[in-house]
């Protein structure tokens, strides 16, 4: 096997590199000289050149479908129109108010159902005696407060208040956001 002065073996890959212009100038010049003077090497080089030519013949440019450019430009123009169009300002009140009202209704109904269930539930006997009977004496009106707390009307009022506060808060946030936009 012939080698270059720097010890690189001259094989088909090196000949390809030479044909492809990938060798350093000095190596390329030396190889060119050798190809001219060595018939075997010249034959190998011609084989490489034939392979390159065949490869280039196979690697042909493929055409995309007809109307490719027009489609690209149409998409591009559509994108431009979309980009320049001012974004529609969404009125979040249209979402917040119905959601708030629904939440309010659900809370009210939930409260009513819960209070009815609590009223019907049998009272449990305390498993252990009270540790501080004196305190229990001072708050002897506790059962009455308990009745008042579990009353459906209380739930309704509480839920209404919470719902109203939620809506007002959401509205405040929305207005602030719209002002920033």
């Amino acid at each position, binding site marked *: 096997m012939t080698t270059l002065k720097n010890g690189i073996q001259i094989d088909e*890959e090196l000949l*390809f590199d030479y044909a*492809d212009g*990938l060798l350093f100038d000095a190596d390329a010049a030396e190889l060119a000289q050798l190809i001219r003077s060595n018939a075997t090497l010249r034959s190998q080089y011609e*084989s490489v050149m*034939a*392979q*390159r030519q*065949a*490869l*280039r*013949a*196979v*690697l*042909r*440019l*493929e*055409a*995309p*479908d007809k109307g*490719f*450019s027009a*489609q*690209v*430009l149409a*998409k*591009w*123009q559509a*994108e431009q129109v979309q980009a320049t169009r001012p974004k529609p300002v969404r009125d979040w009140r249209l979402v917040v108010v119905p959601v708030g009202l629904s939440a309010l209704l659900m809370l009210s109904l939930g409260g009513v159902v819960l209070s009815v269930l609590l009223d019907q539930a049998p009272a449990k006997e305390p498993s252990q005696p009270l540790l501080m009977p004196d305190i229990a004496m001072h708050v002897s009106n506790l059962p009455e407060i308990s009745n008042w707390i579990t009353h459906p009307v209380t739930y309704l009022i509480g839920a209404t208040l919470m719902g109203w506060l939620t809506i007002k808060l959401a509205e405040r946030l929305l207005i602030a956001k719209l002002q920033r936009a």
Partner: protein
Amino acid sequence: MAALLSDSNLIQQALAGSQPAFATLVKRYEKYVFTLVLRWVRNREEANEVAQDCFLKAFRYLGDFRGESKFTTWLYKIAYTTSLNHLRRHKPDIRSLDDDEQPLALADSGTPDAGHEMERIERQVALQDAISLLSEEDAAIITLFYLHELSLDEICQVTGLSLTNAKTRLCRARQRLKPLLEARINEIML
């Protein structure tokens, strides 16, 4: 008129909003981008879509093109990454010569007494398919090098591969195609 302008002139005009400049850029490079995308995607319909996406991405980010590399290198890089992303999303299982270290052999004609014409057609078909039977990466590199005439440095910019890796892949692709190429050469010689 626009067709005679250089890429950089067209880019300037396109950035200023000229639609004909965009159109000329697409016309000028549609085949190159499409061919490269087809090497990866292997399906004309999908390649059409992906190639269109490449141009749209290029137009979107045209303002970022600094001219440090050739416009084509930049454009092919977009084509490369877009194709790669498409493959990651859509390609289920890819038949590739990466799994087979043997050089590509001619297909068996199937019948022992198949005529010369049959063999010739088979060779032609096999050679046409040879590129698509390489791994996507190898097929893209060999296409970029021999068809798009990019240097190895430019191929590295497009693919993100190291110089050694790109060269190794180029050599490997050539070696795998060698039997088919030699058969074609013999056919021409006869």
